[in-house]
């Protein structure tokens, strides 16, 4: 998700570290332009094309967390509009804003229906002087590296198309009623306003709304492009690893984050600050591989091995004690379940049928946990099934 070319990176960090150390890395390394976004090449080329030809459809971005949906939407806006115009032209609404039906009826409709002022025609022309003045100053913060060609040129760099953009982030939490109310709004004001809907689950967007948009699916990032990014951030931020361990540590981070770039960056930053490193050029201790799993809250392999051993001993009371202990140690039952299942599937000497039965129970318990059931009881229920199945084998 977060890709910056190395030149932009250098300039960007040198300015940001001195001014604000307070921004988390996730924000600091959020891509500033479409070309900076990694991996989602098809989407980017389509969108760049749309920007160049000034023909932008309504968009629907969907995909798992941390794949760059919000970043792409924001970068797209930055690329379209002169920084001075950005606030007036783009309305970002996310789940933190009230988005009931009344908001659709009032706020969105109001914003969408106001045409773009006549002094801001697309491409340049009237009002150019004013934009020139503002644009010059603001262009510096956005793309530091382009300082050289900051002249009259930049007027052409922003197409400033004659429409506005409404970004509906986390659109799957918008109520169905509100979505229904959006249907006609989207069509009626399409001359003035484009919508970008962003969501994790496309199924939660009602069909009439989805069919009005060009859909883009963001796939989880492959390890290779994530590794490049993470390594890059690590070197720029001065993370320290033990000799030859850098690859192992990064591999661990990547395998834990499962294609979620944000999680990977957060993990790296936390590992960095936990190991005593930080801003201000202070170097901490080396980041250790073991600390990564512990930090992500994952149960250590020894814990799961122990659980399997106890299950094999086929004594209910010792299983109960062990499970209660796991919960008291504070491990998340969800993670324990998935680790346990992975272990059981790889286990020799257990019949396929038994594994399947356990898997069904694990799935059920996982759902129950999300519904808010008690962790001890759910874990114990799974373990009692596993116990039965293990016993049957003997």
């Amino acid at each position: 998700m977060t890709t910056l070319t190395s030149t932009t990176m250098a300039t960007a960090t040198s300015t940001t570290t001195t001014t604000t150390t307070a921004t988390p890395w996730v924000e600091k390394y959020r891509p500033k332009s479409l070309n900076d976004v990694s991996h989602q090449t098809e989407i980017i080329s389509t969108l760049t094309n749309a920007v160049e030809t000034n023909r932008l459809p309504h968009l629907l971005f969907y995909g798992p967390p941390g794949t760059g949906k919000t970043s792409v939407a924001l970068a797209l806006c930055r690329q379209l509009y002169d920084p001075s115009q950005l606030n007036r032209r783009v309305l970002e609404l996310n789940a933190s804003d009230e988005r009931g039906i009344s908001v659709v009826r009032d706020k969105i409709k109001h914003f969408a229906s106001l045409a773009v002022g006549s002094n801001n025609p697309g491409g340049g022309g009237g009002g150019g002087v004013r934009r020139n003045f503002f644009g010059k100053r603001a262009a510096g913060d956005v793309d530091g590296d382009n300082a050289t060609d900051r002249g009259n040129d930049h007027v052409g760099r922003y197409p400033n198309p004659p429409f506005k953009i409404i970004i509906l982030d986390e659109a799957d939490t918008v109520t169905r009623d509100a979505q229904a109310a959006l249907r006609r709004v989207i069509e009626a004001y399409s001359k003035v306003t484009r919508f970008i809907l962003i969501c994790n689950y496309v199924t939660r967007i009602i069909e009439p709304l989805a069919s009005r948009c060009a859909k883009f699916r963001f796939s989880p990032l492959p390890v290779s492009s994530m590794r490049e990014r993470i390594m890059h951030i690590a070197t720029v931020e001065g993370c320290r690893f033990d000799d030859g361990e850098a690859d192992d540590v990064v591999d661990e981070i990547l395998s834990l984050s499962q294609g979620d770039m944000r999680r990977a960056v957060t993990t790296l930053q936390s590992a960095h600050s936990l190991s005593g490193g930080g801003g201000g050029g202070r170097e901490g201790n080396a980041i250790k591989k073991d600390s990564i799993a512990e930090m992500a809250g994952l149960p250590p392999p020894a814990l799961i091995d122990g659980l399997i051993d106890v299950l094999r001993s086929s004594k209910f009371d010792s299983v109960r004690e062990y499970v209660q202990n796991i919960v008291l140690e504070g491990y998340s039952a969800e993670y324990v379940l998935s680790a346990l299942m992975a272990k059981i599937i790889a286990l020799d000497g257990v019949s396929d049928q038994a594994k399947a039965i356990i898997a069904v129970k694990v799935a059920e318990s996982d759902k129950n946990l999300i519904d808010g059931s008690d962790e001890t009881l759910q874990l114990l229920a799974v373990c009692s099934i596993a116990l039965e199945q293990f016993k049957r084998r003997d």
Partner: protein
Amino acid sequence: MLPIIKKMLWVDKHRPTRLQQLSYHGKLTQCLSSLASEPGGLPHLLFYGPPGSGKKTRIMSLLRQVFGPGTERLRLDKRTFTTPTKRTVEINMISSNYHIEMAPGDAGLNDRYVIQDVIKEMAQSKNIATLRRRGGIFASAAASSSNEKNEEENIAKNKGKACYKVVVLVEVDKLTRQAQAALRRTMEKYSSSCRLILCCSNPSKVIDPVRSRCLGIRIAAPSHDEICAVLKTVSRKENITLADELAINIARASNRNLRRALLMLESCHVTSRDDSPRELKASMSIPHTDWERYIAQLAAGIVNEQSPNSLIAAREKLYELLINCIPAQVILKTLVMDLLPTLDDSIKGQVVQWAAFYEHRIALGSKEIFHLEAFIAKFMAIYKKYLNFPPPLLAFLSFMSQSSLHRLR
């Protein structure tokens, strides 16, 4: 000041307020202090762990380390929020100049509006208190002890860096989905002026997008030995001699919950105050809470007799417990844990599975008594079947032909 302190519970009186004073989880404390030493890079945090493991204590010590003693000057605010449907919600907030602590879950289904309002309001302004400190108000204060001096230095080093406020949200696992979704983008958008510290006991109930934005900090329950050590320290401070045996008994009975252990210790002290004010003997019995004894009675009752009459008796007990505000899930869990030791291994698995089933129903449903009773009825059925056909008999019967088995049943 002293008379007030005397009236405090031991749990609060001896609560550590600084990172250096924390007694167990040394490695974790180190991590926290390295986080606090670089307050600019403090990520959003998610503390999770079982109750009574010291989550809040650690959060408050961390805040103190970052912002200095100002975090201990607390005030209680009552804020009212208006939902778009013109309903008002009242929330208690505990706040200092540097942070706000609240339990938005108290607002029930309207928690979303509370989160939306509070965080935006907090995030829109910078932390004036830390900026003011640049003027040197704290630097001029006389630092008496060396400990204070260290702290002064730390704060002086940090000044200006922690230019954000902290919102501590407790019991995030009780937040609705919508409220958690409302946290997502807000956490990112306002991260420069506002940091969140979330605190919960069950991390499974926090949605993934929120979890991936936080640094998770797992706080395990203290071990029996660690609890004993704390009990010893507290009783030494109170000038009481505590027998080793009693300490370990309390630790066991507390189920590795430090808060409970300390409360038990204090109640032991109160009950024995008249006979031996400065000593706690090993032979003392540990006071259990009423509701626990009540549930134990309930468990004994249904193991004794499985009949409609016994079910009616159980219902009375259940109502009594519910009326006294014991959460249904706690009742069920305690009941199962009381029942299990009395059962034969062959039916333990079954009982646990049904308990998990009905506990899930409680979480989904709205009328708790139904599911509690259903579990008890189910348990009676399983148990009665076991009594009529214990496993040896069943094994014997399976040797017999199918037809004769049918007749028997």
